[in-house]
Each structure stands twice: as C-alpha cells, then as structure tokens.
C-alpha cells in the first residue's frame, strides 16, 4: 500500500465519521479532533474502521500518535511497513 493510498483511505474513513466536513481543507498538522469536531466515540469508530480496512490494531496507548493527519500517516505507514504491507509511492 502506498502512502497516497493510506492517505486516501484515512480521509475516506474520516469522511464517514464527519460527513459534513470539508476534508480538502484539512490542515495536516492541526489536531484532527479539533478540526472535525470529533469526540471520543467518533475517534473510537475511526480506530475500529482503520482496523477493519487496513488491519492495523491500534492500542489505546497509541491514540495520541494519531492526533493529526500527518501523524496518522507516519504511524500507519510505519505499522504497515513493519507488517510488510507498505511500499513507496510509485
């Protein structure tokens, strides 16, 4: 899975959680919860969706590592790489 594919998957899952949000204007380095008005239930649903789609089980202690879109990308890319399922963007 390329970084671009990870990014588009994350954005799609976030749009399921916050359908009214304009994800094109999301700031990559600003807290996702603040930008999208996501509460803990929404965030848990996002983590569950990531697990289903990307097969990455995110432990609760790692939640702070998913604070921003860029942070999500770094975290998921590393986890997928460790699992042998990430590859560089073509």
């Amino acid at each position: 899975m390329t970084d671009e594919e990870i990014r588009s998957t994350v954005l799609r899952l976030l749009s399921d959680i916050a359908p009214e949000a304009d994800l094109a204007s999301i700031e990559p380095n600003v807290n996702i919860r603040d930008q999208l008005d996501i509460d803990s239930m929404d965030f848990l649903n996002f983590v569950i969706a990531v697990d289903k789609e990307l097969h990455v089980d995110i432990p609760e202690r790692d939640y702070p590592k998913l604070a921003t879109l860029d942070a999500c990308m770094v975290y998921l890319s590393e986890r997928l790489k460790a699992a042998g399922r990430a590859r560089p963007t073509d």
Partner: protein
Amino acid sequence: MAEFRMPILGADMKAGKLVAWRKHPGDEVHRGDIIADVETDKAVIEVEAFVDGVLERTLVEPGETVPVGTILAIIRLEGEPALAEMPAGPPAEAGAPIVARPPAVPLQPPVRLRVPEAGGVRISPLARNLAARLGVDIATVTGSGPGGRIQQRDIEQAAAAMARPAPAAPSEEVPDRQMRMRQAIAAAMARSHRDIPHFHLFTTIDMSRTLTWLASENETRSVADRLLYAILLIKAVACALREVPELNAIWVEDKVVLKPDVHVGMAIVLRGGGLVAPALHHTDRQSLDGLMHDFRDLVQRARAGSLRSSELSDPTITITNLGEQGVEAVFGLIYPPQVALVGFGKIVERPWSVDGQIMSRPLMTATLAADHRALDGFRGSVFLATIDRLLQEPDKL
C-alpha cells in the same frame, strides 16, 4: 380500542409532523413496535406502540402536523371486535365518522382563569398532570367544568392553541431545522430557568483508579470491544441513583414522583448544532459492555435522526459530559420534568493530597444541578459522594 396519540417527546414539544406510517390498517402491532415516524423540531423520531393489538384505522395522513395528544390511529386490542363489527352505539355516535382530532377544538384563545371561590386554582388531578407534561401554564387556562374547574379538555385546548403557529408575514423566511431546534431548546431551557429553583453542588474526583483499571481492561480487548471512560461515569451515576432515589424522579402536580426504573438520558451533540438527550434504558441493570453497545447505537441513531419515542420520553435524569471539549466544570440547567442533571468536566492532572503526600493525579469535577423543590442539598451531596465512591471501585461497576 386504544387511541394512539401524537406523543410528547420532550418538555419543549407542542406539535409533531407525521412523516410516515410504518404499520398499516390490519397489521398486527406489539408493544415496542415502531408504528410511525414523527418529525419534531429536533429530529425524526420512531414512535413505538404501547399495546398489543391490530392497527384498526389511521386518522392522520403523512405530511400533516398536529398538536401533541392528537389521536393518530386506533389500535384494536386483543379480543375486541373490529370497528365495523361493533354494535351500534347511541344514535349521536353511531353515524359519526372517526376522524383525527386534536386534543380539543381550539375555538378561542385562552383567557385568564376566574378567581376561584375557595382560593387556589380549581383543577382536576388529571388536568394538572397533563398541564405539567404539556408545559401549559394553568394560570392562563379558563376552566369549563362546574364552578370554573379546569378539566383535561381545557388543558388540551390550551396546548393546541400554543402549538398553532402564528401566521407568518409574507416576507418571513421559513426557519430551517437548526433554527427550530434552537427554538425548541430555548423553550425548554427558559421553562427550566423560570420554573425550577436550581441549586448546584460540585466535587472533585480522583480518577486514577478508574483510568488505570480502564487502560488495563482495554489492553485485553479487541478494538471493537473497548470501553470509553464515559461508560464508567454513566454506570456510576445509575448505580448511585439506586442509593439516592430522590434524584431519579420527575416533578409533576406540585410534587416529586420517584421513578421505579433508572433511565439515564445522555446529552448528545448533533453535527451541525443542537443536542438531544435520549435515554439509555435500565441503565443501572446493564453491564458495561451492554451500556457501551447501547451508547454507541444511541449516538449513531441520534446523529442519523432515527431515535425512538420512548428514548426521548423516558429519561429520569440527564448526564452532560463536556470534558472532551476542555471544560472543567458544568453547571447545567435541568431538563424538565426531571429534577437533576449531572455534569462531568475534563480530566486534568493536578496536585492532590493522597495519604498526606502531594502528588499529581488525574482529577475530574462532577457537578449536580438539582431541583430544590424535590430535594435538599444534603441528599445531593450524598449522591455526588456515592458517584465518587463507585468510581474508586470500577471493577465492581
């Protein structure tokens, strides 16, 4: 026959729009079945049957807006003959078609009550109860019974008059849903502020044990089965209500009525603005897993606009948890006719004295807004202390 009426789905509701029938004449219905969808100012609500029987006749068409209390349909109870098979009644009724009717025909605007001879308002208990439920100020109602006594139909008439919208000026824009929701919240909160003598208490709770237990518990669970700390707060409130039942109550007919079942209402923020506070039924009897499942389902349906009528009419207390928004303490307004609201603030790391030593601890402020007509501060303080005690033993919740 049972009359299926437009339900009151909150203290602020005066009328509802029938969106669709889910059952049709001839269909069997069972208690709890969803019969119709009704649109209020806040959402589209799935309205449930309250009896077993057969839907005999519908009296309101989809798209119609009718006052609370209007008969929407007739349900034939088990063992009863169908309407067509019923023996003819008195001549005056035999030929009269059954039609949808509001609680009463509002022929004239309400006028001031005549001063009763013996002092005080002369009103039947049934009418007083109905007035409390419908939010009708009995001082504005004229009684049509003997000696000016206010009867049920007078209250229904006043409620219908309240629900009738004022004619709109040609240039006036139709308010959108968000505006109507704000107006509904405004009506309920204004009533709360006007009628309920609130008192507020707060306490600081050390959440160390709760959070440590939760982190440990969630480590053993799959992602989909994890618990939110809010679930522990909800369960602690529900269990505390068993020990301090005065707070699990409503205020009607100038007296407090204790409710036998604990149905905690959870304030849920809706995307785009506004909030609802539907009930988690039998909160005290549920396991943490059951509560988590039901809470997730409730949030999802609240935001999708598919709550059920019982969820809006049954709450016996409300919790508002604004901690995630960074607020440290919530001093809320009670949602009438309930007598209490519990608020939870943000968990913050602060110095705290433990066994004579100052150390950093995750602390949370729990507040209680209570109706002073229903209880006194002492019982309120016992309630908050009970919540604190229960949260120190999360494995027993």
